[in-house]
Each structure stands twice: as structure tokens, then as C-alpha cells.
């Protein structure tokens, strides 16, 4: 047998399919579960999507089939590599996965004509390493990675060093399996910028982590399921995502989220249009729609993640002041300044990093 074709060889023109948008007024939208507004009375109704249909006549097939970046990638990889239509026109993926898809040329450039509202993007997000001019992607919502702790169990934990070494936390700490979040925070603690991490810096940070694992300080590496351990008191403090904590605080006011002194990691989930999408234009119109401040405000008020659209906060200050005040949804300038993004890795270093990282988190 011979090897599989290198995926990046696909020509940009080949990426596009005949756009059926005008004939076929639909758009297939894949998103994560519970990542969109729902009607108070009928949870099957998504008001913002309905309004989109009213405005444009385009109906949205909304599917919540993205549970995990890696899982999703595994699922669509073969088709995208083979140049097949994956039957989705828009999909929402985290920065690093978006970076991978862009690098692999498995997603299409947006037509600027159709996404005029792109101008409303939060300024700190206009330039990202993986998509310098936001030609391919637009953020759907953002998350911060920082430290969460259960006030009932422990006092404030404000630095990664405390988290990884304080003896009263031994066995009661979790970190995220997500490499960029856990390693990013350690890199910041070490005084390195995750956006420009070197192999040596990475190894140094990994050694710190390894020590914490070996000493039994770290109980588990988790996906989203840390929330439960944290609320149940099994875990005193952990590396956590802001969005979850907003929701957890509703359950349990003892849970606190802090951006570590050395800085936090910020990541966004981005809307992307895969190659061969049959309704590219409709997809672009949808993206454009969610960049109207009013729509963005309605969405943010519901999902409680960082809103990437300028102007939404102002609208909410009137309609829902407590949301507008929530730092975890609308971080202040000061906070935003302390947030960093992780370097967009090339294929080789991504594999090297994740392999090394895997050996530490799964000894």
C-alpha cells in the first residue's frame, strides 16, 4: 500500500463547491450542545435563528454534534482529507483546531462582501496568529482558562505555583487535559509567553507539571467534568474555564474563579466554513448576522461566555445590567490585558508537544 495524500496539497479552488445558496435557502450549522439561546417556553426554539430566517429566508439546520475538538476532528478528518463535502456549512471549533484546519487548508476563505459585520469584532481578536486577517474564521464565543477554587474547602488560590505545590491541596487539584490551557498557564507562571513558546520553555513547564503529577498533587486531568468534582468538594482548586464557573456559581456560590497573577489564557471557539460546503454564502450571511451587536447581546446573555462583538455590552447594560457587569462575560480592559493566547503550532511541534504532554498526564 502507498501513503495517504498530503492534505495540504488541495488547491484553494478545489476547496469550493458549486454554491447552492441561492437556490437552496438553508444552512447546516454544527455547534456544541447548549451553546445557543433557547426560548423560555419551548427549548426547541432558538430565537436568534428564527429571526435570521425571518430576515433572510434562510432556514438553519442546527445540529449540536460537536462535543470535543479532537472527537470532531477524528470524525470529519477522513472526509475532509478526501475532499468530500462533510454536509456542514458552518462549524464552531476552538482556536487551535481552527488553526489546524486552516493550516491543512480544509476550510474556506470568507467572502468579505457577505460578512460586513466583521468590523464589529472585539479589537483584541482581530489579529490572531493562525488567521492574521480573520480571513477564515470569526469567533463565536470566548473562554478564559484560569484557576477556580472552592472557598469552603480552601482559601484563595491565586497562582499556579500555589496550585501545583501547596501541600494542603495535595490530591485535591485537577488540571485540564487541554494542553494549551494547562501548559499556557504554567508557561505564564514561569514568565514565558505562550504565544511564542519555545521547545525549551515548554520542556521546563512540563517538568513543573510532571513534578506535580508525581508528587500526587494533581488528582486528575479532566475535560469538562472537573466541575462536578469541584462542586462536590472532591477538588479544592483546579485549572478551569470561566464559562463553566459562571454556571457553577449559580449552583454553588463558594466556587470562585481567578485569573492567576501571572496571567490567564484566552481561547475562542470560531465559526468556520469547511471545504466543499454547499451553502457557503448562506453560512457567511449567518456569521454576519451573529456579528450584529443586538444578536450577539442576545446570545451572550443566554450562553454566558465571553462575547466577541463590540457593542453588545452596551445593549445589555440597558436590558440586563447584571450580565453586562459580569467580568467573565465582558472582561474589563485590565483583565483582557492579562489574557494571553497560545501559539499556533505547526504540525510537527503540535505532535511533539502533545506526545510529551500525554506522557505526563497519563503516566
Amino acid at each position, binding site marked *: 500500500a502507498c501513503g495517504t495524500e498530503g492534505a495540504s496539497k488541495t488547491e484553494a479552488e478545489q476547496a469550493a463547491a458549486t454554491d447552492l445558496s441561492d437556490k437552496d435557502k438553508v444552512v*447546516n450549522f*454544527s455547534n*456544541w*450542545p*447548549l*451553546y445557543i439561546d*433557547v426560548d423560555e417556553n*419551548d*427549548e*426547541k*426554539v*432558538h430565537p436568534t435563528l428564527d429571526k435570521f430566517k425571518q430576515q433572510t429566508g434562510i432556514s438553519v439546520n442546527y*445540529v*449540536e*454534534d*460537536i*462535543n*470535543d475538538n479532537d*472527537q470532531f476532528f*477524528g*470524525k470529519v478528518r*477522513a*472526509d475532509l482529507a*478526501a475532499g*468530500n463535502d462533510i*454536509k*456542514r456549512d458552518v462549524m464552531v471549533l476552538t482556536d487551535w483546531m481552527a488553526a489546524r484546519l486552516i493550516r491543512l487548508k480544509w476550510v474556506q476563505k470568507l467572502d468579505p462582501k457577505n460578512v460586513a459585520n466583521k468590523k464589529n469584532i472585539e479589537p483584541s481578536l482581530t489579529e490572531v496568529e493562525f488567521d492574521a486577517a480573520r480571513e477564515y474564521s470569526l469567533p463565536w464565543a470566548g473562554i478564559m482558562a484560569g484557576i477556580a477554587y472552592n472557598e469552603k474547602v480552601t482559601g484563595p488560590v491565586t497562582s499556579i505555583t500555589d496550585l501545583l505545590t501547596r501541600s494542603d491541596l495535595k490530591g485535591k487539584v485537577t488540571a485540564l487535559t487541554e494542553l494549551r490551557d494547562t501548559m499556557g498557564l504554567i508557561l505564564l507562571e514561569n514568565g514565558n509567553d505562550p504565544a511564542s513558546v519555545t521547545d525549551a520553555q515548554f520542556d521546563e513547564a512540563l517538568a513543573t507539571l510532571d513534578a506535580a503529577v508525581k508528587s500526587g498533587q494533581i488528582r486528575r486531568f479532566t*475535560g*469538562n*467534568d472537573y*466541575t*462536578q468534582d469541584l*462542586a*462536590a468538594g472532591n477538588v479544592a482548586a483546579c485549572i478551569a474555564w470561566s*464559562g*463553566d464557573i459562571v*454556571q*457553577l*456559581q*449559580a*449552583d*454553588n456560590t463558594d466556587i470562585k474563579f481567578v485569573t492567576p497573577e501571572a496571567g490567564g489564557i484566552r481561547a475562542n471557539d470560531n465559526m468556520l466554513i469547511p471545504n466543499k460546503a454547499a451553502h457557503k454564502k448562506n453560512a457567511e450571511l449567518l456569521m454576519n448576522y451573529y456579528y450584529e451587536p443586538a444578536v450577539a447581546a442576545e446570545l451572550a446573555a443566554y450562553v454566558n461566555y465571553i462575547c466577541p462583538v463590540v457593542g453588545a455590552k452596551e445593549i445589555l447594560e440597558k436590558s440586563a445590567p447584571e450580565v453586562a457587569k459580569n467580568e467573565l462575560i465582558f472582561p474589563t480592559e485590565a483583565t483582557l490585558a492579562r489574557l494571553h493566547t497560545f501559539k499556533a503550532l505547526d504540525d510537527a511541534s503540535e505532535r511533539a508537544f502533545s506526545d510529551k504532554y500525554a506522557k505526563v498526564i497519563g503516566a
Partner: protein
Amino acid sequence: MTTATENRQGEWTGGGHRAQRTRPPLSAALSWIREHLVTFAGLAALGYLLLPVAVVFVFSFNDPAGNFNFAWHEFSLDAWTDVCGIGGMCDSLWLSIRLALVATLGATVLGTLLAFALVRHRFRGRQPTNLLVFLPMATPEVVLGSSLLALFVQGGVGRGFTTLFISHVLFCMSFVVVTVKARLQGMDPRLEQAAADLYATPYQTFRRVTLPLVLPGIVAASLLSFSLSFDDFIVTNFNSGNLVTFPMFVFGANQRGVPPQINVIGSIMFFLALFLVLAAQYRTKASRRATK
């Protein structure tokens, strides 16, 4: 030698007709306990199995303060009165049920045939077939799922219900083969010989004698198949196209907090299964009474 396989202790020979005997109450109690020790252990095992279901059930009545349903907040029937309130959940449930039913049917038929061949026939290639049956079980699910996906992509097969059916039958089949084999091994071959002697063709022998006698094994195997298929996430995720099965839905929901409706669904599935069995039991009893 034994001809009747149904004769067993305590079925119709025991129990109900025993005389009341006068024994000191304490020693009677002790000896009663001793006699039923195994039953107690069995029931304890069942309790172990059901414990999480009880928790799931209890938390289906929770009204979580936020999105996360794992700390008791307050009693509410909201989730029960609005089971399908969560967008897409009931669709995914229905999809999973349909899928599990057809996959169980397919796997049970194919697996039972295989089991029969492996136990009852000596043919060239029997040993390799025996081993081949174990291989899918020994394959990590990611590998199984992604290999199938690669195959479907290469073959230009669009992902959807069919590909899910194919892959579920594949991984359930091995479980059926092993379970049915365990039943078939040691079944008295003379009963089948007697059937053949009484003009039953191989098919009729199977239908009238073998099948009823192997039925407990087949029922057990299909129960396993159903729960495997219904509960599968990984292989399904690879091959579902843009369909969302119930486990996929739960997995996704877990990223942002599992709503109590999922507990309701869990509880309903549990009680539904129980209800169906009780109903079937009641019906056969009633019809038996009717024919008497």
C-alpha cells in the same frame, strides 16, 4: 443420562408445598438465612447494579440552580413534565432506540448463526473463525470506529443510519456469539436427534427444538446487544455523519452541564424496560389461564 433439562431444584418440586415444621424460632431464622445466603448475595449484587440508577432517578427530581445537576438544590417535577424540552434530546433518544433495536436484531441473527456453526459443526476454518469473532472485542473502540470510517469514506458510503447499523452490528455480534455459545455448549444433542428422527428438517429442528432450548441464551445476548448499542459513543461518533445519538447528546451536554431531563430519560428507559417485561409476563400468564 439426563434427558430433561428443565428439572431443577426448587422450581416446582420445592417451596410452596412444604409442611410447616416447628423449630426454635432463632435457629429457624438462622438456618433460613443460611439456606438463602446465595440469594442474598445475588440480591446484593443487583443492589450494586441499581444503586446509580437510584441516584439518577433521585436527581431527575432536582431543580438545579444552574446548569449542573449534581448538587441537590430543590425538588421539582419540571424535568418530568417537560421531558423533551431540551432541543434535540428526544430526537436523539428515539434515534438511539431505533438503532439499538435493529442492530440488536442484526447482531443476534448473525451471531446466533455463527455460534451454532461453531459449536455444532466441525468444518475447515472453524478455529480461525472462532478467533476472528474475538478480534472486534479486542480492538480499542477508537480504532474500530476510525477504521470503519476510513472504509466508508473510501467506499464513498455516506454516513448515517446505515453506517451506524453496520458498525453496531459489527461490535455487538461478538458478544452474541460468545453468549449463545455458552448456552449451546453442553446442550443435549439427543433432543435434536429425536427431532430429526421425528421428521423435523434441520430448519424445523432448529425452530422447534433447538431455538426454544437456546432461547435464554439468545435473549441474554440480545439484551447485551441492546445495551451495548444503546450506550455506544465512540464508534457511533465516528460514523454518525450528522446524526446525534443519545449518548452523543449526553456527552455533549456534559461539556456544559447535564440537564435533569437526561436523568428523566435514564429513569424512563429503566422503568420502561421493567414495565415491558412485567406486561409480557402478565400477558403470557393470562393467556395460559385462558387456554386452560
